[in-house]
């Protein structure tokens, strides 16, 4: 018996090994290879030239000083902030409202999650036309008389340009150049690109149902005793949600935030099919940058450097979360 017990765990470990080795190669070995390329002077698939760039961080320096990548970082920050705030808030409100329904509960739940089951390519192709200046929403404004009302009030015609708008609202470039060392490094207007707003809307439209599903699961797992205690204390309505539901939803909220942030930092498909890089890279993102540097410009060292940057950004969000998760299970 004692021998058997000693033997069993190692069988288990051995049975797990093929998967682990496969994942280890496809994740960790491949990442190391990519990092190595990002440090090379001029690696190309044909000639495996691994000579290190001089200085070794040259590609990263070029990346950071490229105005396109600076634009991408600006876009990622704006996109992530707006997208998270909208999808988590809407998701939470939807979850509360849907959990309060009786007969229509399943209908609404399924309706709001439906977009999540469809690919970003499909929705992107459709949203591209809904937010096209000559079609979509602008047509609705025309039909509904909103256009003429606007003209009547402001004296100018309303012609929203959506994703083709070159406008960037606000500018903190000066401030940033003042704060950051090496002044004058940032060459891009750091503000809110208007062209990004329809894309943020489309992303939030598609993923707020995911946030809702997570919060619904969280609401359903609030222990019955807690609800009963709340009912006895007459903690109903707003007080119930503030003092009982929201605190117990916190773990779920963190999980949702981590998943949505990592989705947002990696966003590729939706941008690719909906807006592309946009005018003045107004809707460009690191994911698009990497793809185009690698497969269009064939500038592998720069492309891989940008991909390593994406990896670091995602890891900063995900690793603390996974490590906490790992510790939680070791106890």
């Amino acid at each position, binding site marked *: 018996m004692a021998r058997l017990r000693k033997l069993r765990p190692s*069988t288990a470990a051995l049975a797990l090994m093929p998967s682990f080795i496969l994942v280890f190669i496809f994740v960790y070995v491949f990442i190391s290879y990519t990092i190595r390329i990002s440090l090379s002077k001029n690696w190309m698939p044909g000639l495996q030239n691994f000579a290190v760039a001089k200085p070794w961080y040259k590609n990263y320096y070029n990346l950071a000083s490229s105005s396109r990548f600076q634009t991408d970082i600006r876009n990622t920050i704006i996109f992530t902030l707006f997208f998270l705030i909208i999808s988590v808030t809407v998701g939470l409100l939807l979850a509360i409202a849907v959990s309060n329904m009786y007969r229509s509960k399943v209908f609404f739940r399924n309706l709001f999650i439906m977009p999540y089951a469809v690919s970003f390519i499909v929705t992107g192709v459709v949203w591209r036309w809904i937010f096209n200046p000559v079609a979509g929403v602008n047509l609705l404004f025309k039909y509904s008389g909103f256009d003429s009302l606007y003209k009547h009030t402001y004296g100018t015609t309303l012609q929203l340009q959506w994703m083709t708008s070159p406008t960037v609202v606000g500018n903190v470039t000066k401030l940033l150049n003042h704060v950051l060392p090496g002044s004058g490094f940032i060459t891009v207007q750091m503000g809110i690109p208007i062209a990004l707003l329809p894309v943020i809307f489309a992303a939030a439209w598609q993923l707020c149902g995911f946030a809702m599903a997570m919060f619904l699961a969280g609401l359903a797992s609030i222990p019955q005793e807690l609800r009963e205690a709340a009912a006895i204390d007459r903690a109903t309505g707003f007080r119930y949600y503030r003092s009982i539901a929201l605190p117990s939803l916190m773990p779920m909220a963190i999980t949702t935030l981590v998943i949505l942030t990592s989705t947002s930092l990696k966003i590729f498909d939706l941008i690719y099919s909906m807006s592309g890089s946009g005018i003045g890279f107004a809707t460009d993102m690191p994911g698009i940058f990497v793809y185009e540097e690698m497969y269009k410009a064939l500038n592998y060292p720069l492309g891989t450097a940008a991909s390593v940057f994406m990896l670091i950004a995602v890891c900063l969000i995900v690793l603390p979360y996974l490590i906490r998760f790992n510790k939680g299970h070791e106890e």
Partner: protein
Amino acid sequence: MTSGISSTVGSSKRSKRVQFFLLVLLIPIFTIPFFVVLSASFKTSQGADVSTMWKLPKVWSLSGISEAWHQLHGNFKNSLVMVIPAVIISSLIGSLNGFILSKYRFKFSNLIFTLMLVGMFIPYQTILIPMVRFLQMIHLYGTLPGLTLVHVVYGIPITTLMFRNYYVSVPKALVEAASIDGAGLFKTFFRIILPLSIPGFVVAGIFQFTNIWNDFLFTIVVIPDPSNQPVTAALNNLAGTQTVNWNVLMAGALIAALPTALIYIFLGRYYIQGLTAGSVK
């Protein structure tokens, strides 16, 4: 029996009525793209134009759908040939891993699990170049089996997590009883655990089917040749063509979205279970 309690906590009756009203107001926003796709798909080429995208077809016609199917059926078949094996294999591997990780403890088992989970989150842009070189080495670059392999490997973390969470509810006594009877790990897994796993396979399978069907980045990198690509990438190519008619493009979107949409409509409950089961918590 619990409805008495749950109707007293949460929102009041009047507030619930307001909430219902607000939810109804949201229906158009959540159905708009679906409306646009469906109404355009059934228009004739003459009656289809973006300037009339909000109008229902004057003449209902299947010509858009049949033209889109004519252009995309090969890619649709490619999707099935690639997705189905990828779903089955990654689910099977995930169930074995999930079983091991939920029922056996050994040195570094938690570390190994966490290291595998990282693979779920990494931006795939970081592995594209070595992945392509690897596929070229084993002569699977540009092929559907190559793409299947990629989806299997990068599907392992999520399926492992889903099955691990699923097996937590399977009593450990069952496994112990089997081992007292002399059954080894694999025998226990195939004879006792697998037959109990059908709901887990439905949840993980639907979730993986949707993920892999909807993938775009791996597809365009592993299979650059458009005629060999699955349907999601083919739709993007169609959208990039200048000459495509509006009804054909939207019918193409309908075709590309239909399998996952149908699964969602009929098996939505399992898909939603998968959403929450696949999150690390």
